[in-house]
């Protein structure tokens, strides 16, 4: 019975992806993104997450990395083609990724701290 529920949850994910694919000729956004937004709308309407859907999505997202493996092997293809500029490309990607990771996290931490202070201040005022 539990397996049936999990199968149903998996079908739901594929179904919403299919719905996104059906919508993509009309809305110029990637199909998987449209499917994601549709499912989000569905959950907002439902006001809760069905437990089987939660379990299945946690499993799928926890092991999502394996789905990237075939595409990742493309690294071997382009390493030869881009040999002349490879070093610069690698440098560009590493530098931009590390700097923006640090900056984004730093700004976010500051924002949340300010917000937390503002919240506690407000509560003091209320009291």
């Amino acid at each position: 019975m539990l397996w049936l529920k999990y199968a149903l949850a998996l079908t739901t994910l594929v179904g919403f992806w299919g719905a996104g694919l059906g919508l993509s000729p009309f809305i110029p956004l990637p199909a998987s993104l449209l499917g994601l937004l549709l499912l989000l709308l569905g959950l907002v309407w439902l006001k809760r997450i069905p437990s089987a859907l939660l379990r299945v999505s946690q499993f799928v997202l926890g092991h999502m990395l394996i789905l990237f493996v075939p595409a990742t092997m493309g690294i071997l293809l382009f390493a030869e083609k881009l040999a002349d500029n490879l070093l610069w490309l690698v440098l560009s990607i590493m530098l931009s990724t590390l700097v923006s990771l640090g900056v984004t996290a730093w700004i976010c931490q500051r924002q949340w701290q300010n917000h937390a202070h503002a919240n506690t201040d407000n509560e003091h005022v209320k009291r």
Partner: protein
Amino acid sequence: MNMLSASSNAVLSAVFWCAITLAVYLASLFIFRRLGSRPIFHPMVFCIAILAVILFYTGVSVEGYQAKTGLLTWLLGPATVALAIPLYSQLSSVKQNGVGVLLPIVIGGLLAPILALLVVYFLPMEAGVKLSLLTKSITTPLAIETSQHIGGIPGLAVVIVIFTGIVGAVFASSIYRLLRITSPQAQGLALGTVAHAIGTAQGFQMSQKVGAFATLGLCINGVLTAIVLPVIFYIVS
């Protein structure tokens, strides 16, 4: 009859290569945990190395391997849809901290591609290669379609996206220690914004909360980039 056996052969070899990929993934995960789950030994690094050796000895080309494991790549679509669930569970915190959530995502989402483009801007490269850098921080299924829209090379865009993700996942905890980023919200949001789904997977390794906020960054930056980039290119061209 001949056609039937040819197609069943194709199915068989697709199942075979998907099974190999699964085995290599599990082995990489095992090695990663055995070595103390240090980000520097990211499972993806072992996956590439082991599979490269297997492909070399079996004489299968990378294109052939990708064609045979098309099922796994196709599943990325439904898996991306599954991101709606952690996103839904964080909706209330987005409502509470609207700007606090959006501002870092927008800044990170702009900074990553602009910096990448600046480094290679004056180098003699094909325009398509440079344009492929612009989708570096968004998740693979979105990057493929967006890169097509703006004149990048989709195959290269995917490689750049994944390399970005691995770099982000490997170095995130060192950067956070260096800059004293301790809040799980900030750690997750930055990982998801800059290093998309691979960063998000790393986030879920750190904790459920970091993972949930990484999902938030991944989704919002993915949506914004997928909408904004084609519009900018439409105006410029």
